[in-house]
C-alpha cells in the first residue's frame, strides 16, 4: 500500500478527514477527483493553509496538510505554533522531502532543523518513518490521535519489513552488546546495512528505528543502559535539536551514563546533488558509517 492509497482509504471512510496542500500534489495526485471538496489546495500559501487547517479543525475536521518540509515547518511556523499549537488542534502535517530527500534542491529546501523546531511546540507529536512500509504502518495510529503531529514523509522503497507500530514506541531491529545505533527516517536503510557489515566484521551491533521522536520512547533508551557499551545516533538533521539532543537530554535527566557518538550535520547545510552523491559526500553512505562506528568502538575498548 502506498501513502496515497492509505490516505484515500482513510479519507473516503471518515468524513472528518480533509486533505490540504499548499500546491504540493506529488503525494496526493489522484485525490482531488476522489475527495472533491474535501481536497483543498490553497496555492503556494503555507501560512494560510496552516491557519485554515486550524479553522477546519476548530469545526471538527482533521486536516492532513501537505507541503515541502522546509516551507511547511519554517514559512508557516508561527501559524502552526500559534493557531494549531496553542489550542492543540488535530492538524496532521505531512512534510515532503525532509532531510537528505531534498537532494538537488539546495539549502533553501533543506529541512534539517525540522525535528528541532517542531518538537519545540507543546503538544506537537513528531514522527519519522524509515521507508514507505514503515510509513503506512505508522500513519493510522498517528492520524488517530487528537494531537497535532508532524511526519517526515518518506516513501523510500526498502526490503526491510517493519514490525507493527505502537504509538510512541521505537522499533528494536537488533540488540547488540558492543554498540547500538539509533536512527530514524531516511537514514534507516544505510544504518541497517552498516549494522549488517559490522556484524559480519564480528561486532555485536544493535539497531533501533526510533520512529517517534516526540513522544520519545524513554523505556527503549532505559533498556539499552547496561546492555550495550556505546550509542551512535545517525540522522539527516542538524546536530542540535534532533535525535542526538533528545538522547542527550534523556541521559542527563535520568543520570544515565554511556558514550554517545553523534552522526549529524554539524551546523552546516549539505552539498546539493543527486541523492546518492549527497549521502556519500556528507559521509552517510554505508562504508563511511561502518568506518566511523568501528573507529568509535575501537576508541572505547
Amino acid at each position, binding site marked *: 500500500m502506498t501513502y496515497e492509497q492509505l490516505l484515500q482509504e482513510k479519507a473516503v471512510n471518515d468524513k472528518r478527514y*480533509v486533505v490540504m496542500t499548499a500546491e504540493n500534489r506529488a503525494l496526493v495526485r489522484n485525490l482531488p477527483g476522489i475527495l472533491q471538496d474535501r481536497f483543498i489546495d490553497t*496555492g503556494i500559501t503555507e501560512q*494560510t493553509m496552516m*491557519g*485554515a487547517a486550524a479553522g477546519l479543525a476548530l469545526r471538527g*475536521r482533521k486536516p492532513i496538510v501537505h507541503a515541502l518540509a522546509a516551507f511547511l515547518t519554517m514559512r508557516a511556523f508561527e501559524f502552526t505554533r500559534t*493557531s494549531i499549537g496553542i489550542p492543540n488542534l488535530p492538524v496532521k502535517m505531512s512534510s515532503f522531502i525532509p532531510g537528505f530527500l531534498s537532494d538537488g534542491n539546495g539549502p533553501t529546501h533543506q529541512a534539517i532543523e525540522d525535528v528541532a523546531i517542531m518538537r519545540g511546540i507543546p503538544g506537537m507529536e513528531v514522527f519519522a518513518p524509515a521507508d514507505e512500509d514503515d510509513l503506512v504502518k505508522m500513519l493510522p495510529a498517528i492520524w488517530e490521535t487528537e494531537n497535532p503531529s508532524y511526519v517526515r514523509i518518506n516513501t523510500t522503497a526498502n526490503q526491510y519489513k517493519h514490525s507493527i507500530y505502537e504509538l510512541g514506541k521505537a522499533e528494536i531491529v537488533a540488540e547488540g552488546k558492543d554498540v547500538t545505533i539509533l536512527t530514524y527516517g531516511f537514514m534507516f536503510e544505510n544504518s541497517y546495512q552498516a549494522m549488517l557489515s559490522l556484524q559480519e566484521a564480528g561486532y555485536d551491533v544493535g539497531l533501533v528505528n526510533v520512529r517517534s521522536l516526540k513522544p520519545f520512547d524513554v523505556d527503549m533508551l532505559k533498556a539499552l543502559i547496561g546492555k550495550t557499551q556505546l550509542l551512535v545516533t545517525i540522522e539527516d538533521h542538524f546536530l542540535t535539536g534532533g535525535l542526538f539532543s533528545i538522547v542527550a537530554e534523556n541521559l542527563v535527566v535520568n543520570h544515565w551514563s554511556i558514550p554517545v557518538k553523534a552522526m549529524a550535520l554539524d551546523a552546516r547545510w549539505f552539498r546539493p546533488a543527486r541523492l546518492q552523491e549527497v549521502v556519500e559526500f556528507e559521509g552517510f553512505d554505508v562504508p563511511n558509517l561502518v568506518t566511523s562506528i568501528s573507529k568509535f568502538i575501537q576508541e572505547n575498548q
Partner: protein
Amino acid sequence: MNIEKRIELENFALRVRERIVPLASEGGCFLGASLSAVDILTYLYTSFLKIDAQHLDDENRDYLFLSKGHDVPALYGVFVELGWLAPERLKNHLSVHDHIYWHPNRHIPGVEFHAGSLGQLPAVAIGVALEICLRKENNRVVCILGDGELNEGSCWEAFLVAHAKQLSNLIFVVDRNQFQANMATEELIPLEPLQDKCKAFGLHTYRINGHDFEQMEEIFSQLESNQGPSILICDTVRGKGLPSIEARADRWFCNFNSQEIVDLLDELHQIKQADITSQTIVAR
C-alpha cells in the same frame, strides 16, 4: 434604522466605553485601538451576528474572529453589556487569577480564538468559512482586522485565497483608525488607496464610517447577496469618545492614574475635558 434603534446602540456603545476606560490604568491597555472598534463590535454583536455565548454549540451560529486582538477591551466590554461576562471580572484585568489580559483568550466564553499576533486570524477564519461551505451551511464568519495589521503579508495572502475559494460567507472588517502602533499609517506604510487595493484582490469592497450605525446597517444588510468574500473598510477615530486622546499617535497604549481615569470618564460623558499628564508610552 429607526431613531430608537440608533439611540439604543449609541447608549450600548457608551456603556461599553465606560467599561473600557478604567482598564487603562494599573498596568494599562491598548485604549485607543479599543475605543475605535467599539461601535463596530457593538453593531455586529447586537444587530448582525447570530452568536450567543451560552449556546456556542448552536450549529447555525455565526463566528467573529478578532484578529486585531489588542482591542480586546472593546470585545469584553461588549460581552459585559450582553450579559456574557460578569462586570466584576474586568477588575481581574492583568491578574494571574483570570484570563483577562491585553489579548483575547478562549477561556472567556464568546472569544472564538486567541489572538495577538497580527495577520494570524484571516487564515483561521478562512478555514472556518471553508468548513461551513463543506457542510453547505450558511453561518457567517466575520474577521476584524486593524489597519496597521494590513502591513502583514499574511492578510493579503488570505485575501487571495478567500477570493479563490469564493467564500461568500466570509466578511473582513477593517478598523481604519489611521494609526499603527506609534505612527500614522500613511507616514510609515501608506495603505491608501485602500479600497482600490482590496478591490484588486477580488473582494467586494465597501467604505463606511465605523462610528455610524445607520451606515453599518445599510451595508451589512446588503452583503448576503454577494458571491465571494467582502471587506468593509470602517473609517474610525483612534480613542473615539475621549477627545484628549483621539487621533493621537502617542496614545496607543495607555496607563493612566486613577484621577485621570475619573477625568476621562467625565470627558466621555461630556462633563468636562480631562487633563492628562501621564507620560505617553511607546509600547513597541
